[in-house]
């Protein structure tokens, strides 16, 4: 069964002559457990597509179904809770909460639910992410690579159906980039996570199971090969 189903998504900014069509009838599906990369040049619409998938923005038309649920039929509060529990985000700029420690940042979505975190799972995740020694540190005490690992940990902690990563290696050097991609692949396999990753780096996209390309708002499926 397809975890993610995108049906004819359109996004237009502005109106009249100044209208910009960022996405033009984009449709695709992603089966559960697949690691999909979305590539495209700067301004191609790939980040816009990711924002639609995560319900961070509203499409002009079209549908996005995650696990069979049409996310744009939900009101804001239901959508927020859905996003909290079912979607994990990894941003290019990490976007960690500077006042929270590594451990607190990772369990942040659970704290938003006023739930007690699964300590065993937390220990396991910290070990996988190599952050056990840094659990009490604040983000400003970590390197870029370590911060991105924390962001990945936060995205994974709720065991979401879908992880959306927007240029996760954009602010990292090559070594850290490789480590982060490897981590994403590993967790995808280990926890059967479905991952959609935005990148402009075709080399990094090769790590994915499948590659989609966005060009001028139009999506094409490149499969495992790309030009």
């Amino acid at each position, binding site marked *: 069964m397809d975890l993610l189903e995108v049906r004819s998504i359109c996004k237009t900014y502005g109106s009249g002559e100044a209208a910009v069509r960022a996405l033009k009838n984009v449709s695709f599906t992603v089966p559960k457990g697949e690691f999909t990369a979305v590539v495209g040049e700067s301004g191609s619409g790939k980040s816009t597509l990711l*924002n639609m998938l*995560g*319900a*961070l*923005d*509203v499409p002009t038309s079209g549908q996005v179904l995650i696990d069979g649920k049409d996310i744009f039929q939900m009101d*804001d*509060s239901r959508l*927020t*809770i859905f*996003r*909290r*529990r079912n979607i994990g*985000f990894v*941003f290019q*700029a990490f*976007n960690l*909460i*500077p*006042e*929270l*420690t590594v451990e*607190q940042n990772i369990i*942040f*979505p659970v*704290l*938003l*639910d*006023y739930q007690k975190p699964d300590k065993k799972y937390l220990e396991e995740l910290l070990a996988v992410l190599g952050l056990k020694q840094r659990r*009490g540190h*604040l*983000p*400003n005490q970590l390197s870029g690579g370590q911060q991105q690992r924390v962001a990945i940990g*936060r995205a994974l902690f709720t065991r979401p159906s879908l992880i959306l990563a927007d240029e996760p290696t954009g602010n990292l050097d090559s070594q850290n980039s490789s480590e982060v991609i490897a981590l994403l692949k590993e967790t995808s396999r280990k926890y059967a996570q479905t991952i959609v990753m935005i990148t402009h780096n075709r080399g990094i996209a090769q790590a994915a199971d499948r590659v989609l390309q966005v060009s001028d708002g139009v999506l094409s499926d490149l499969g495992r090969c790309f030009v």
Partner: protein
Amino acid sequence: MKSYLSLIPISARVRKKQNRMILICITLAVFLVTAIFSLAEAGFAMQTRDHIDVAGYWHIRLSGLSEEEAQQIADRADVAASSWYGLINLDEDLKMDKDYYMDGHQTALCGIEEPFITDIMHYFSEGSHVTGERDVILTENAQTLLGVKVGDTVTLDTPAGSLDFSVSGFRISGDGRYVNANGGQESALLVKEDQVGAFMSIRTFSAICSAARESCDPQYYIQFKEHTKLKKAIDEIQAQYGLADEDIKFNTLLMASKGISNNTYIKNVYPLAGLLFLMILVAGVLMITSSMNSNVAQRMQFFGMLRCLGASKRQIICFVRLEALYWCRIAVLVGVLLGMAVTWGLSAGLKYIVGAEFAYMPVFTLSWVGILCGVVIGVVTVFLAAQAPAKRAAQASPMAAVSGAAGDIGQVKRRADTRALKIETALGIHHAASSKKNLFLMTGSFAFSIILFLCFSVLIDLVDCLLPQKSASPDMDITSVDEDENVVNDIDVSFADTISKIEGVAHVLGRRVCFDFPAEIPEAEDSSVLSPENVDLISYDDYQLDLLVKDDDLRKGSDIEKVKGDSPYVLAIWDRDMPLKIEDKIRIGERELMIAGMLKYNPFSNDGSTGGKMTIIVSNETFIGLTGITGYAILDVQMEKGDAGMRDRAVGQIRELSETEAYVFRDRGDEDTRKEFYVFIVFAYGFIAIIAMITLLNIMNSISMSVSARIGQYGAMRAVGMSAGQLTRMIAAEAFTYAVSGCVIGCTVGLFLSRYMYDHLITSHFYYFTWQVPVGQLIIVFVFIFVTVTAAVYAPSKRIRDMTVTDVISGS
């Protein structure tokens, strides 16, 4: 552009919206100070002019001088005018007990010199003089009592014989009153309606005193020249002639306007006035610093860019300071103009709408004091406020500009504690507490508003003591007295009924009085033992008893209802030296009576004290039962409000009826101080409202800036799953942290200062008023806190809710 500083006006043009809040804060601070000082100067000038008209233009009054010494003082280069002043046959209670009469009317004699008429006092009719030994100036009522005019001859009967005088003028009271409710201590020779006052030359006066073997100790009035160093001159005179402090009396208000006073009460006011001014200054600095801090925080990337391009830290500091002073150009000008306009408006309102003693209020005058203070306050507070933000801007690193991570929320050093609190609450509190400087400024702003409010409330209580607004205040009173001017219960009940039926009369409150009535009261050491004591017995009707409750004149535990009717319950007047308390039993005649309540103070004396005399208040029925007396001693008449013509007609009728029955009539309409009281209330609360508004604007601005600085972070939180409600609660937690910390400090310091001010300004003078925790004001403080936080949180959280998550993340 001549230098990098030329960027300042360009930046100001571009950032109009962002700079708006700072400009508003500076303008408000300047406006506040200008308006306050201008109004105070106008009010003081008005009070001084009014005081000079009533009490005379003199600085000090000396006792114990010989003629030679007085002449030496008069010859001093710094003395503008001086005059002897002697008085006989009039004591402090306006009683005349010596045999000085004019045409059968008791007469007080006053010996003066010409400067007393021409320079010192302003209430003599034109042409009045005492140049001749037989010239006399009479009080104005002599025209009716004696039927005399200028040029007529009057005969003064003294114990040593009779003397004829020629009337040369009259002492004009101007308002038809002859007895000032405040005792007229500073006004020479105010007499009752049926008495006469006579001013004559000091030589004639001394001769009369000598012939009648009277000892009179004339005093010497001195008016110094303009620009005289008063304190130095007075100290010199005191030292040269060996005068004690008690021998020198100051013209209190006039001297206070020069900053000199030997009055303990006035001396207590100066440091307190200084303290209030300081608090206003600090509130202004806090408010402007907070705004500037937020303004700088938003522009750290810009300052980083300047550093990138080669600006030194010193140049950045200079830039920020000059930018602040640049804002002053417009804000100070607008603030001063606004302050003057409001001053003119308020002065015109006081003069033409309120009138009465504000009739002398100057309207369209320029108060240089107010303008100067406004400008100084504006520039000084802005300069002081700019120091910390300037230093902060100089700390911007060039990397901030390059990386875009401007660090405008500062380096986080401690984690948020999420163990005991919900995540959004913990984060909100942490946001507030993370910047110590901002926390200090916001807390300080809240605290100062609260402190000023609590302190001003004490001033309002003070004015309430000085100008008590009582429901029982009469518009006129009628008293029956015997030949010796003792109050007697001769007013028939039917007379009271007649008065009550006159059109315009709202209430007639009758009191029966028995002085020195034999009673037995509990002893101080053992309340079960009664010992004989004379008491003053006064009757109140039911309406008057209810007014005691309405005016909050009763001590806690009092029960008025028990006193009504023919009951064994009575009221007593509390005094700190009195042994009586509620539920004590006393005996009057055969009747055992119980104290059901106590008045907080004596409403029948000027200073509220009992003077050691015990007063018992009973119902009409109880009084008649105890004494057998049915007639009234005093009728208080209250008029209906509104129609001045109807009032004047009623006054005329009642006066005529009273005089027919030989009762003493007194029109007390001019004692109505309601207008002045409410003017002060409006002024005080208006000022407090502006301070509160400044605090509100401050926190709204601060929260808005804080949200703007963290907008990207909030977007990420929303993306990760924080709901709009949780975000609002997080912002609210930040605002509440400022508010609660400000409230705690403000209430603690404010209550302490409130008590200090109350003890020194009120209890020191009105001992029966003691400070109590101002519960009502504290409730207002809490409501203010809640409203402020709600207002501060509403706009930013709505702004975020109305944006898509991606827009929030990108900060657009």
